[in-house]
């Protein structure tokens, strides 16, 4: 399913804005924008599961947090190179997704949601209650990964501006890669599975395999977001594994428009920006944000991204 043209145009405009933003923005806002972009990566990876394959996971933060913790543990005190530590962290996430996926993908519906939640919560409690992982305080990163090419190190991840642009590049790369994957035969199978899995099987597709591959891919990309969170924040704590993180990401996906990729990225931005704006206006910002969410659900059937969809005769997905 392609995102509506208007939405993609909006995203292109936002992209240009993001490239230019640091020239005028203050440090706090640059930090915040970096956070938003990381969450956009996380949301897009969840959309692969939720919007395109119909797998609603409430445990996506498991793959997200595990990568961040991996970096914190391995590269928290002595700097490691991003070139190997990033793929390694993503691999850890992918493996976690593989193990959980094999166990969990046999269930469906609300049971799938709850079992994914259960696994994430179990890891959350384990990490929170164990000393090795720093308990509920978490682990600090005193240094950041290095990014050097044959001794030339133009990028210093200790520098907020560099982190900002690296994150931007990664977010764009994530979008491009996912877009390409979703247009491929693999992507078509996922969409078919979401629409009518039994029919896919009777057409000869071994659907379990594809769901698992999707789960692993989504997990790896969540790991990318988690790694960058550790880089950006300089700290990993158990809340990054908790259901609030998973739930928040799910809200971004639904709010932005499921199954459009651009929508969830927009949803991440919308939720974070509104949180900031509302909290500047009033101490009781959650009231406004909650009201906004309720209004979107009632009046915008396809989420925020749905605003750009052309009117069709007959409902798309109900």
């Amino acid at each position, binding site marked *: 399913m392609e995102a509506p043209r208007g939405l993609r145009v909006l995203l292109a405009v936002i992209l240009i804005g993001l490239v230019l933003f640091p020239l005028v923005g203050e440090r706090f806002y640059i930090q915040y924008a970096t956070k938003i972009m990381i969450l956009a990566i996380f949301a897009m990876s969840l959309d692969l599961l939720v919007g395109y394959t119909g797998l609603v996971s409430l445990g996506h933060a498991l793959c997200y947090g595990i990568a961040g913790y991996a970096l914190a543990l391995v590269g928290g005190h002595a700097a490691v190179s991003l070139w190997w530590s990033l793929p390694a962290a993503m691999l850890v996430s992918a493996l976690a997704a593989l193990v959980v996926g094999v166990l969990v993908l046999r269930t469906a519906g609300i049971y799938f949601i709850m079992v994914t939640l259960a696994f994430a919560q*179990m890891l959350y409690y384990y990490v929170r209650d164990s000393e090795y992982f720093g308990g509920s305080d978490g682990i600090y990163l005193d240094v950041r990964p290095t990014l050097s090419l044959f001794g030339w190190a133009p990028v210093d991840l200790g520098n907020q501006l560099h982190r900002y642009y690296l994150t931007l590049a990664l977010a764009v790369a994530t979008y491009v890669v996912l877009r390409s994957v979703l247009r491929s035969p693999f992507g078509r199978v996922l969409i078919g599975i979401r629409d009518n899995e039994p029919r896919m099987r009777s057409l000869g597709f071994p659907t379990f395999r594809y769901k698992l591959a999707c789960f692993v891919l989504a997990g790896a990309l969540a790991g990318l977001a988690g790694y960058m969170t550790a880089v950006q924040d300089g700290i990993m704590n158990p809340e990054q594994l908790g259901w609030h993180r998973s739930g928040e990401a799910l809200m971004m996906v639904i709010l932005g428009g499921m199954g459009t990729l651009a929508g969830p990225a927009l949803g991440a931005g919308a939720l974070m920006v509104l949180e900031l704006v509302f909290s500047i206006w009033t101490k009781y910002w959650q009231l406004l944000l909650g009201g906004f969410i309720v209004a979107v659900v009632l009046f915008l059937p396809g989420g925020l991204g749905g605003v750009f969809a052309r009117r069709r005769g007959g409902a798309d*997905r*109900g």
Partner: protein
Amino acid sequence: MDFATFLIQLLNGVQYGLLLFLIASGLTLIFGIMGVINLAHGSFYMIGAYLAFSLTGLIGNFWLALPAGVALAVLLGIALEWLLIRHLYRRDHLYQVLLTYGLILVFGELRSILFGDDVHSVAVPALLNFSIRLTDTLSYPVYRLAMSGVCLLLAAGMYWLIARTRLGMTIRAGSVNREMVQALGINVGLLYRLVFALGVALAAFAGMLAAPVASVYPGMGNQVLIISFVVIVIGGIGSVRGALAASLLIGLADVFGQVVFPQIAGMTVYLVMAAVLVWRPRGLFGSA
């Protein structure tokens, strides 16, 4: 663990389980009959607790505050269903999830505006504010026993309602085939409004009942929410019987888990859920 401690934990576990049952039964009714995933359910529990706090303060009497609070909760449920929830029946479950998540934020902030963010307490009503002796060294608060008793009464009441009355029959029929029930001339809209109000009232009542022992604090809704979903999944969606069995199971597992396996205390509940789902993928009493 000596016998006295075991007995205390057992009583605690049962009491916690029965309280969970009140909350979970409302949730499973709303999900099973109306097909609505209600994330705001924990908020209703919290609202109940805060109602107990404020109404007891206003009226001066816990016993009068209870029915007043329930009445207010029923009104809230009716209003919410009529204003918001009924627009979601035909839509993807995920939109219900998102809307009710928005409601969590709204209710949380309203509570903050009206009552602030402090922790409050509600006094145990004087009538029940004593303990009975279990052994030479240990005694158990009567109020907790009373709580369990009330929950059991309500459980029996719900069984009677659902299995033995026409309303209950309509509820069961409506969960299986909404269109058919409509075609038979039954006002499904009204039915759903009642079911939703019932669910809200149960959660709020649980909050009111628990207020004297659990204290009244901002995050209480969230904690209870997740556990409630675990309970209804273990019990089987839509099954009140299942909710009872699962609540007791989880109540006991949680309480004993903390005593016997403190290292994995938080995880116990999820391990139990995973184990049950492996054995019975649709929950204990779930239908296909």
